[in-house]
């Protein structure tokens, strides 16, 4: 019901797939990494998005940057877990194509129909049931009301201003001007929600990529120290 104001994309994978198809490339790890910048540009344009959905776009952005920054941050390479974005995107594409086939099946209008019992043919007869009691009704209604709660609260969250990636990058630059360096952990802990965690992470990766700052870690379990270059 609360329709997303930007119905341009059916989600982050849809956006990614279109960017790759625009380049007329096959889906490979390389072609995916290659459209990262275009993806981030599109992401900037998406505003007033449902926060849940926006965070899905951001999660994918983080995965793209991770993929792309493997070369820049060689120690990431050592981590054995592989992000199977390529496989996921290929599978997603299969379903996108299947959905087009289903759309054309619907267009053929080969609907089938079941028999309708004509209401007038059935004598309406008052047939109550033992479980119809005032208390049962009241309790059932309370359950219904409770179920609506998250639906009512969600649009209020939407009003919260979206944290913009660009704004975050500026903030970090400003902060570094004054501080010189700071801990990665502190930055993550200062984030108010999942979306902000991801935005902070993205902003950081972007700044490392643009060689504005450098990340240092003494050993695997220590905090990562971010420094101005």
């Amino acid at each position, binding site marked *: 019901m609360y329709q997303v104001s930007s119905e341009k994309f059916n989600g982050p994978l849809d956006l990614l797939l279109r960017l790759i198809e625009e380049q007329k490339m096959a889906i490979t790890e390389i072609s995916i990494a290659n459209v990262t910048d275009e993806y981030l540009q599109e992401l900037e344009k998406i505003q007033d998005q449902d926060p849940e959905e926006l965070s899905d776009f951001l999660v994918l952005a983080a995965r793209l940057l991770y993929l792309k920054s493997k070369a820049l941050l060689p120690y990431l390479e050592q981590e054995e877990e592989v992000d199977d974005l390529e496989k996921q995107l290929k599978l997603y594409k299969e379903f996108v194509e299947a959905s087009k086939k289903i759309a054309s099946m619907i267009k053929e209008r080969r609907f089938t129909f079941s028999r309708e019992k004509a209401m007038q043919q*059935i004598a309406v007869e*008052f047939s109550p049931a033992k479980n119809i009691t*005032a208390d049962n*009704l009241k309790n059932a*209604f*309370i359950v219904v009301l409770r179920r609506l709660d998250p639906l009512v609260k969600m649009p209020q969250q939407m009003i919260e201003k979206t944290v913009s990636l660009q704004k975050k990058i500026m903030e970090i630059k400003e902060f570094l001007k004054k501080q010189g360096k700071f801990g990665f952990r502190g930055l993550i802990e200062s984030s108010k929600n999942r979306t902000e965690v991801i935005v902070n992470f993205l902003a950081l990766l972007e700044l490392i990529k643009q060689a504005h700052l450098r990340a240092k870690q003494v050993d695997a379990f220590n905090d990562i120290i971010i420094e101005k270059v």
Partner: protein
Amino acid sequence: MLKTKIESILFVSNKPTSAKQLARFLAREGEAVETSEVEKIIAELKEKYNIGESGLRIIQAGDEIQMVTGPESSELIKKFLKEDMTGELTPASLETLTVIAYRGPISKPALEQIRGVNCGMIIRNLLIRGLIDFVETNGQSYFQVTVDFLKYLGINSVDELPDYERLHKAENLEQFLEKAEQNKIINL
């Protein structure tokens, strides 16, 4: 295939029809056909259904034909159709009845938004059981509980339901419906 089409029409039709009516309907829909041709097809369909082991029949009285169940199942069918009308209400039916009781008169779209699922079948069942009925306003049906329902609960009107004032106008429900209306999802 004309034969499969006539077979389909006989299936969905709730009342008797005739070869002449069928021919006229088909002609209107761009399938020009003689009544005699329709009669021939009906004879074929009768052979298909009325001979041998079959749960369906095509019966004819004068010009009137109809597809019906076989006589050996008639007792069973009567009971099957009554099934829905007896026994406890399912949780989904009870919930639907509740929303209609506390929020009625209410339209089907509004009811479905509140419950978050399709309610077509359940509404039909509650209607047949005489627990709800409806009023029509501007071509939209609004459902409400029946007098029999109130009597069964031993109350005179819905506002005697427990906590009616508070629950009927629950804040989150009002907000929810307001949003739904803004989003032009439902016509309240």
